[in-house]
């Protein structure tokens, strides 16, 4: 019963945050696990100004603004270029899934410096 209630609460909270405008607008959170088992969270805050996708990687003291962000509605493909505070070049190549849902997914390949990994962001 408690699980059911918790589930319902989560559902209602998510529905309350439903976002129906530009599909990338909002805060996206993704997690990856390193080879040593360490967890790393990556946060993207994005918005659409009518011409460009702008945004910030990991907002906060170490946040950096996107160099470029491009959404291609054909297949809802998204590419992002940004430099981390430590100076590493990042390139992300992915696509939006579950477009109609409030908790849609942005999945793709994250390349940072010489390493790369697959990652799945979820719109919060």
């Amino acid at each position, binding site marked *: 019963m408690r699980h059911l209630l918790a589930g319902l609460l989560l559902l209602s909270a998510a529905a309350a945050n439903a976002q129906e*405008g*530009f599909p990338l607008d909002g805060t996206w959170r993704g997690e990856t696990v390193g080879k040593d088992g360490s967890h790393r969270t990556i946060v993207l805050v994005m918005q659409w100004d*009518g011409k460009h996708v702008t945004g910030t990687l990991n907002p906060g003291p170490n946040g950096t603004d996107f160099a470029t962000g491009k959404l291609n509605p054909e297949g*809802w493909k998204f590419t992002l270029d940004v430099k981390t505070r430590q100076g590493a070049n990042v390139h992300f190549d992915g696509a939006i899934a579950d*477009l109609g849902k409030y908790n849609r997914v942005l999945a793709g390949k994250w390349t940072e410096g010489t390493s790369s990994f697959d990652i799945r962001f979820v719109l919060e």
Partner: protein
Amino acid sequence: MTTRKRMSNGALMAVLLAVTCGLSLQAMAAPPRYADGKVRLDRMPGEKGYWDKPGAASLVESGKKIEFLPNGKLKNIADAANVAPFQPWSLALYKFRQQNNLVDDPMKVCMGPGNPRQMMTPGGVRFIQDNNYKRMYMIFGGGNHNWRTIYMDGRDPPVAEEVTATFLGLAVGKWEGDTLVATSTGFNTRFWMSNGGLPHTEALTLTEKFKRVSKDVLEYEVTVDDPRTYTRPWKAAWTFSWVPGDIEEQFCETGRE
């Protein structure tokens, strides 16, 4: 017998003509006014009635001949690009929603219709003119049984980034002759602008014109200006009919159409 039949046919014609003329005259009757001459958008004292039967069920740019199903689905998906002057992303999203059978429509889970969809939602609308506080209240029977305020005191429209975004926006209004002109900003993005799935962003500004052209007809025109979603501002227009009686109670229940 033949003469009597002719007479009865003639009488019937006369009755029909009188009824038709009566109805036309009633539809054409001048709109009621306050003592100061301003048009009264609501009922007269002692009268019961409200506006309903919106003359359009789906939002489309004025002048476009596009056929929709009652639920907002295009009869021909090839018409999608002509519904409004879309940006590429908004056209793609509109097509996705159409081809996905509108299953993600927020109103299916009892979210508010937002505006201008509220103005296409049957159920009734009334205008309560508060001349003391210089405000117009609109109360709605359709959607979530909601209301909105139009401030008529001459203030400027709010800056969208500085207010809490809402489904119906924040409106200021003024009279231009007999036409009430309301400008709304501060919309959230939690609704579809039409049952067909027209998208918008927080940059949306709506300019609405309400004109009671006769006792029983209200003309409505809306200009949609959202440069993040559409390549230029665009208009749509429809009418409402005066319905005797009171707005009926209704509530949205999830899972029920």
